[in-house]
């Protein structure tokens, strides 16, 4: 990956081993990577190859069994879950395959969440702007069950970008959507990424989406198979 600019995310010899019903199971094995600020990386691979696990580790949602990860200059291994949460709040945005909107909250309230957590007084205003950016300003008071899949993912995108994170992690962002809607979401994701100069790490099966990233990394049975340009 890029050596010219500042590195915002590195993983060094990261492994993840879990205890399964048939003994220990290696999900990730000796993964090393680096992502530069403003860059985009697609992690691809077959189901069960460890993509989502790697994404979670990179985002600090879980701890590796061995190896180390540095996010925005902070070594995640040295941080407890509390400190990692603080880091995520400031620097990280998320988009999930199954949207993960809170069903009891309206579209606007879902988008307000990261700002409210940060104690921002202008949460509602900023959420309104973010929803307008994804074209849902008229649906701000709708609840998730009143929105289509594509609309829900747009709300999730608004939530991911509303606090202007440095790095965005997306797990199969188009996986639950039809091709056309998925393409629309892809466009929006990359547009927002450009506008905010955000570093993007995404896991996908969608070849077209992966092709839009500056770099690709293929996982096979938990190991890096090779990486694109």
């Amino acid at each position, binding site marked *: 990956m890029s050596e010219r600019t500042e590195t915002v995310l590195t993983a060094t010899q990261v492994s993840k081993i879990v205890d399964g019903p048939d003994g220990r199971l290696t999900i990730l094995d000796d993964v090393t990577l680096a992502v530069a600020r403003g860059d985009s990386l697609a992690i691809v691979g077959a189901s069960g190859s460890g993509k*989502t*696990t790697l994404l*979670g580790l990179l*985002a600090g*949602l*879980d*701890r590796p069994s061995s190896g180390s990860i540095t996010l925005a200059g902070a070594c995640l291994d040295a941080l407890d*879950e*509390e400190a990692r*949460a*603080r*880091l*995520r*709040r*400031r620097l*990280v945005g*998320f988009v*999930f395959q*199954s949207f*993960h909107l*809170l069903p*009891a*909250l*309206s579209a606007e*309230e879902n988008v307000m*969440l*990261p700002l*409210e*957590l*940060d*104690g921002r*007084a202008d949460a509602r205003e900023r959420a309104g702007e973010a929803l307008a950016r994804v074209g849902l300003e008229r649906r701000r008071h709708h609840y*998730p*069950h009143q929105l289509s*899949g594509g609309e*829900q993912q747009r709300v999730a995108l608004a*939530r991911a970008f509303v606090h202007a994170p440095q790095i965005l992690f997306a797990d199969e962002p188009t996986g639950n959507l039809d091709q056309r809607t998925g393409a629309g979401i892809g466009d929006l994701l990359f547009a927002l990424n450009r506008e905010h100069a955000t570093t993007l790490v995404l896991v996908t099966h969608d070849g077209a989406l992966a092709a839009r990233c500056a770099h690709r990394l293929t996982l096979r049975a938990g190991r890096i198979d090779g990486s694109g340009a």
Partner: protein
Amino acid sequence: MRPLVFAARSLRREFRHAELATLAAALVLAVAALAAVATLASRVEHALLASAAELLGGDLALGASQPLPPEFAAEAQRLGLASHRLVEFPSVLFAGEHSKLADVRATAAPFPLRGRFSVRDAHGVEHAAQTPPSGTLYADHAVLVALGLGVGGSVQLGDRAFVIGGEIASAPDNGDPFRIAPRVVMNLADAEAAGLLGPGSRTRQRLLVAGDERAVAAFAAWAKPRLPAGGRITTLADAQQNLQGAFERGESFLRLAALLAALLSGVAVALAAQRFARRKTDEVALLRCLGAGRGEILAALLLELALLALPACLAGLALGLGLQELVLRLAGGLLPGAPPPLPWAPPLAAFAVGVAVLFGFALPPLLRLRDVAPLRVFRRDTGTRVRRFDVLYLLPVGVGALLVALGAGNARLALTLGAGFAGIGVVTFVLGLGLLRLVRVIAARLHGALRFGLANLARRRALSLLQAGALALSLTALAVLGVVGPSLLERWRADLPPDRPNWFLINLQPEQRAPLQARLHELGAGNVKMLPLAVGKLVAINGQAPKLAEADDRRGESAVNGEIRLSWSEALPPANRLLEGHWPALQPAQPELSVERGWARLFGLKPGDRVSLSVGEREIVATVTSLREVDWTSFHPNFFLMLDPASGAGLPHSYVASFHLAAAGDALAALSRDFPNVSLIDLNAVLDRVRDIVGRVTQAVTWVLGFSLLAGVLVLLAALAATADERRIEAALLRTLGALRRQLSVAVLAEFAALGLVAGAIAVAGAATLGSVLARQVFRLDGYAPPLLPLAAIVLGAALVVALAGWIGTLRIARAAPLAVLRRG
């Protein structure tokens, strides 16, 4: 698809998940609480009835003025019952110059069949006694004082001399605790030999039987039509009539505890079932997608529920029965004698109620699963069809109402509780909606996690209202069990004040009033109440011969054919409460009458009816102006009929009085000598009896309340756990978005504390109101004030537990890696 096989497999697989296990646990708990409380209540009731047998001296008594034919004893023997013959008669004992009228009981071994008979010897040492040996008799202390004798002295009775073998310490009352004369117990053969039972003697023959409950009932049925004229059967229920109030209150307390435990369990089952149904939604959608019909799905769901219910109810039953046995063993002195046999009805009822609660509360959400769209497989957010009103939701309400109706066994208790809990539900809903609006406004002005937590409460309106309702009901039940119940018991105990009248005095002539009052004052007697007494006959009601509302009523028959006792007073006497109309005026134009409610019911009397009475030479036609309720356990002179003072003053009358005098013995014997026409009745034995019963019942009820309380706390925690799902994913997502543990904690604490406080405030008001209504309507305790401070304390404590339980639940989630929760989610 074979529904049974599928249901069994489903059950086995799903038991690993929390929902089904919670549902099963709630059910086990519900049945355990019900079985334990109801069985314990039934055994305590049984034991109290057994203590009535001690009072009677047997399980059933036959009484007649002539000796009963021998086939009565033979039938008792045939039914496997022990029997015992007893003859009672008044007679005078002589010792030198002294004489004393006594109530003599001549008995044959074995005596007594039930209860305790003990005497004190010359050294004052008490020991168990049997029928006195020939030539000996046992006498009450009052007899010995009046005759100037001690144990070992000699008395003349009939034409024979006897030795006083002991002073009676305790003996069964044969169902008649109000004795006019002190007791003497002698050998039946001696009584016959002394010529005391010859023709012309005023004997009362009794046959007491004891044994198996069913055999006793069979004997009563056999004996009833064969009794000679004037014969009478006294059952245990009759024997405890004077103590009825005490028994009824005790029973109401026990039922209250059992009922609240059942309702609490219902809440837990309902919440767990909702959660289970939510988990099942995906599975049902998939099955529908794979081609399963609605009928098959419904059958599989019902079977799964049934397969869950059976072992859970059985386990609950075993647990409940074990617990009540433990309580019985731990509370050794709780029940007199051996523990009563295990009744089969309450455990069976608990089992049935468990099944009813499960199906009643769990069916509505599960039945709705029939309508899950197969499309949900493709889009999870495709909800089931939302209906504004679903008749199915009447099912739990119906089961709840049925529980109250069956468990209360007392219409007032059922109505009070039913209306109380329905009222709390409505108040929670209305007040909750208003408060949630307020919370939304307040939250907007706050910052950070506090704002987030409170805003959450307002956002999840339906869930918040549901939780507030469940919490308010649970907390009310807890407050009633933990505070109102014990304080009602305390109030009941206070109902037996130390200066309660323990002596009754009858046949006092008007001119003796002043000297006797002075004498009582001298002796230091307290709480002296005196009322006039006139004896007459009922002549007519509304100009017609009196007709009973129910033909087969013994008390009514004696009211029609026997003597009627009347009194009058300027003001409503203590222990009387006006139910309807006004108290007779001082000098009305026409005679006025106040009638006791039960007596009025005998003849269907109401205010405005005219009652004709003859007293001596005079006939009075009085108009009923009021109906009264009388507390017969007050031990004050009380009357069914009370006239206006002006009409009463002209009638021939004597006086009755009640007073309290501690350690009366010898002083009253002297009083009795100086006022020879006056009869003194010793109420101490009855009072001791009532105190004993109240003591035992309160102890038993305290145990039962304590157990229900424990069940309530467990159910409350289970109810909170049932809503943990919503928070699990949410907390994980918030962690992902960078929420700190402190933020989650503050948010959850704020949310739960607000919820707990709202529910708690409603519960305090609800429990206090319920307590006041229960005290007046069910337990008939006047002047009960619910202890607001302890109520507030217990509810605040519960709100704290609620907040902490929510917080601890979140802590666990906050410790887990968010990724793992989200992936499982």
